[in-house]
């Protein structure tokens, strides 16, 4: 599904990612570990075209990542950061925000679909009426996840998405991603999350290497 081939990324003349090679097949659940500043978030954002590739190439669904094919990756991937921006005043409006854009217009989810996704993520339907500024960080993360699920995204790029969740909610999120159709590339230092992942990569000073989950040391 995704292939990084000798990818180097520089930002403000500083090398952030150096010779990154890895392949992610559909259904893979991969985790990136590494110290703060090692380039984990940059790697996810590079995949979405937010950082320019200095050398090497990235391909998604068999197509090289270029300005012309950017919409392919952006339409199949959902990126959820540690503090997701919901982009609307009310939760319902935030959830339905992407359906205002041309790319998703006319695909508005039904009420039962919305309720089902909320339930899977342990969110009450009453949250729909709440103001985004009044909900917790963990709820924001799950609303952003719900938005990705409602959009039918196949690839989830998750940056510390369980950081603000309690055990019960974390289990619910992990359960959602057991779906073999969903591919996950996440940044996490959470032991439970790592346990449920097939591949664990470590980024050290911009270089990527595959490690075993039990080799992981807490950062």
């Amino acid at each position: 599904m995704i292939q990084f081939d000798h990818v180097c990324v520089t930002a403000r003349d500083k090398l952030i990612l150096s010779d990154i090679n890895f392949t992610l097949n559909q259904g893979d659940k991969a985790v990136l570990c590494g110290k703060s500043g090692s380039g984990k978030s940059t790697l996810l954002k590079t995949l979405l075209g937010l950082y320019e590739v200095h050398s090497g190439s990235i391909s998604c669904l068999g197509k090289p990542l270029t300005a012309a094919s950017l919409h392919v990756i952006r339409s199949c991937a959902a990126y959820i950061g540690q503090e997701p921006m919901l982009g609307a005043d009310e939760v319902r409006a935030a959830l339905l925000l992407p359906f205002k854009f041309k790319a998703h217009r006319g695909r508005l989810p039904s009420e039962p679909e919305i309720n089902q996704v909320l339930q899977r993520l342990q969110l009450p339907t009453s949250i729909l009426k709440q103001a985004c500024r009044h909900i917790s960080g963990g709820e924001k993360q799950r609303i952003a996840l719900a938005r990705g699920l409602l959009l039918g995204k196949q690839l989830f790029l998750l940056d510390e998405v369980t950081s603000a969740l309690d055990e019960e909610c974390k289990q619910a999120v992990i359960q959602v991603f057991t779906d073999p159709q969903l591919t996950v590339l996440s940044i996490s230092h959470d032991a439970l999350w790592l346990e449920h992942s097939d591949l664990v990569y470590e980024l050290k000073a911009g270089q990527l290497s595959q490690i075993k989950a039990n080799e992981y040391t807490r950062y």
Partner: protein
Amino acid sequence: MNTLDIEFPQLLLTYLLCLLPGTLLWLIGLRLSRDIAISILRMSLQLVLVGVYLKTLFDVNNPALTGLWILLMLLIADFSILKRAGLKPRYFGLATLIAVASSILFSTLYLVVLVIQPPHYYDARYIIPIAGMILGNSMQGNVIALERFYSALRKNENEYTTYLLLGATRWEAVKPYFQDAVKAALNPSIANMATMGLVSLPGMMTGQILGGSEPWTAVKYQLAIMICIFTSTSMACVINLKLSLNIAFNAFDVLQDKVIAQAKS
């Protein structure tokens, strides 16, 4: 009615008036005398030069010379807009020039050719002051539009990126900031029109009345020029921002740092 000329000794009296604010500011501890003196000196020198130049321009009344003067005004405005908006002229110079020039020329020619209809539409006595007034006001609007738009994008980079990653096109993602910026740029013009004549007597109208025109003629000129200023500012801001979108972003819709001249807080 002929305008009473101000004789040179009388003009000196107005300079003497500056002693009053100068003393007041000195008394409250503000040491601005140097800045004030430089500003007054610059204003005097610039206006004397413009006076000499305009007199020559009006006497010669050559369309090519008038055009050259307008081009010079546009170039100065172009650099001034970008400098004050914190953007690099190297990248945005041409886009801003196209936006401002097209809107100013359109409004000026519309007003002169269709509305005022002087014997010769290239008459410098009409073209230059009208283009100058419209340009002066439009400049302010363009500074606000560009500055607001790019500082809002930088401040809300996370939100803008979220829109993109949720499937928005570049235009869909920048649209809220674009609308806010144009609104902010036009607000002074709209407020100005709404209070015109109530809060202040506009400069052009006052000038015309002092120059010997009938108040009713002055009112009609003022109405026409205000509508042209508004039209021109709206056109210039929208065209300018639209053109700038093709320069400020890379092919992946990311705002490029290199186009910003200075960090805006």
